[in-house]
């Protein structure tokens, strides 16, 4: 019996169970719509986890991650439609491109702290959106780009692709957080001056955190573009639907926690879809109101509030 007890007490248990559920989900969910919801949840979990590395663990709250999302989406689709680069390589190039623009953006924005950092990065998202909008020869401007053949052709394969990428992102974040890099990120979040006295080049490490976060956000931007098969500057550089939604997912779920992004993604997708089904016209209004209410009553997010009761178990 002790063997069973060991297994039950293992702190990886929730993760393993979840992974199993995720693997068999398409076999159970025969309905396209439910599969679509599951894909959205994965998308937002991955985006939330990417954001969380910078915002939650490094303490640099960005309200402008749409810049990396849009960059990733555009780079992969442009490379594919204009130069015939494969969409699989596009995923990689999307991440690299996002990660590269993170360097100058970080260099400039990390001169500011607190809310000013949060919003100055949003300004860059707007700049990039305006560039894409007006540089019509290359980007097609407001017309957007239509993808004829997506990276995979069925919803089920897309689900598994999304699952793999999301799992990789979660694992990498978990890996990073437990190593020197992660210690440095958390030290910067908790006290920048103390971090400096301990030999941490704070700006450099903030940029590292931003680069990793941007890489994954870019990859997800590219996956999103593949999923919807159409992008335009208003969609992928959207402040409300991308940048602020990413913050929302993490804050609702629990900032700086491992499970926060998943929990937040489930909440946001459910609330969003629920209000769309029930309130049609007023759906965004209701959605906004629910956001207000949840923030009001769950200041630490779902996981943050739960942690007080369940202790380390949920922390993983």
């Amino acid at each position: 019996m002790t063997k069973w007890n060991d297994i039950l007490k293992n702190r990886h248990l929730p993760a393993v169970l979840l992974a199993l559920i995720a693997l068999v989900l398409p076999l159970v969910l025969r309905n396209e719509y439910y599969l679509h919801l599951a894909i959205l949840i994965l998308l937002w979990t991955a985006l939330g986890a990417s954001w969380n590395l910078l915002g939650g663990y490094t303490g640099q709250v960005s309200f402008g991650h749409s810049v990396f999302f849009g960059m990733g989406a555009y780079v992969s689709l442009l490379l594919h439609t204009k130069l015939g680069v494969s969409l699989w390589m596009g995923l990689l190039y999307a991440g690299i491109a996002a990660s590269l623009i993170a360097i100058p953006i970080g260099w400039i924005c990390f001169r500011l702290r607190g809310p000013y950092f949060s919003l100055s990065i949003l300004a860059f998202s707007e700049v990039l959106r305006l560039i894409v909008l007006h540089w019509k020869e290359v980007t097609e401007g407001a017309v957007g780009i239509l993808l004829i053949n997506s990276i995979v052709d069925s919803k089920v394969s897309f689900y598994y692709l999304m699952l793999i990428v999301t799992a990789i992102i979660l694992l990498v974040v978990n890996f990073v957080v437990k190593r020197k890099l992660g210690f440095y990120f958390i030290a910067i979040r908790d006290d920048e001056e103390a971090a400096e006295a301990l030999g941490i080049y704070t700006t450099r490490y903030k940029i590292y955190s931003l680069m990793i976060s941007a890489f994954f956000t870019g990859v997800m931007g590219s996956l999103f573009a593949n999923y919807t098969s159409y992008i335009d500057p208003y969609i992928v550089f959207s402040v409300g639907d991308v940048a602020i939604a990413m913050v929302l997912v993490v804050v609702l779920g629990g900032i700086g926690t491992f499970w926060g992004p998943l929990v937040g993604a489930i909440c946001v997708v459910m609330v969003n879809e629920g209000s769309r089904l029930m309130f049609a016209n007023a759906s965004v209004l209701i959605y906004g109101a629910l956001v207000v209410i949840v923030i009001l009553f769950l200041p630490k997010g779902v996981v943050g509030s739960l942690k007080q009761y369940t202790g380390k178990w949920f922390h993983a």
Partner: protein
Amino acid sequence: MDLSIFIQTVTSGVLLGGLYGLIALGMTLIFGVMRIINLAHGEFLMIGMYVSYILFTKFGVDPYVSIVVSVPLLFVIGIAIQRFLLMPLIKAKAPGENQILMTAGIGLVLTNAALLIFSPNYFTVLTTYSNATASIGKISVSLPLLWDFLICFGITGILYLFIMKTDTGCSIRAVAQNIDSARLMGINIDRIMIITFGVGAALVGAAGTLLMPIFYVFPAIGELFTLKAFIVTVLGGMGSALGALVGGVTLGVVEQMGATYISMALKDALGFVIFVLVLIFRPSGLVGKSRF
């Protein structure tokens, strides 16, 4: 280069900049005291604009007169938001991003409420003076814009007097400078924050009303102006009334220059270019010291 076109451009830039300054003034004030950026700022502006629009179309009230409605209305809205939505977060010691998100959520609600009530259409008010101009030599100026500019200065002056001369203003300054010592001095922080948010909202409400005769209103207008206000706030060095005006005028002139000499389409991008340049070379803003 044609000199008169140049002067014309600068003039309208400066005048427009006065309005930008007024829009940013409320944001600066709220940031100074609360250390949060109000992402619903542009939506407050939108409310001010719709108020003018309704009063004009339904009751024939002159847009400039409607300021006596929009200002108190937004003051009350601001007070209610701070009291019932933001203060609980501060009390719960929630991190700053929660407050910013809260303002974003409020903005979302306001935008979509406007969408339901007014439809996504663009509305303008057409008064007898909407297209009136005053000309000096070859330079002509839109009259409403000129009035706006003067009123903006007036309002900024009144705010300055309020902050400098009244007891409440004095407390606001104390909280902005150092919240802990302000608390030790016996200042009621909650009250000051509520008033500040109310005043900040009232200021941008006034700006919305002033904007109505020269611009058009639609539900999603908020986001554009929230960003502009933020840019102006950073350009101005964050936290000073003078800075907001200087930043506003800078942005106004840059945008007009861009529209005249480069392209209408890229004028918004130029604002961001200036913003980035200031971040690189003068992170403390064009005026004064940084406060962080």
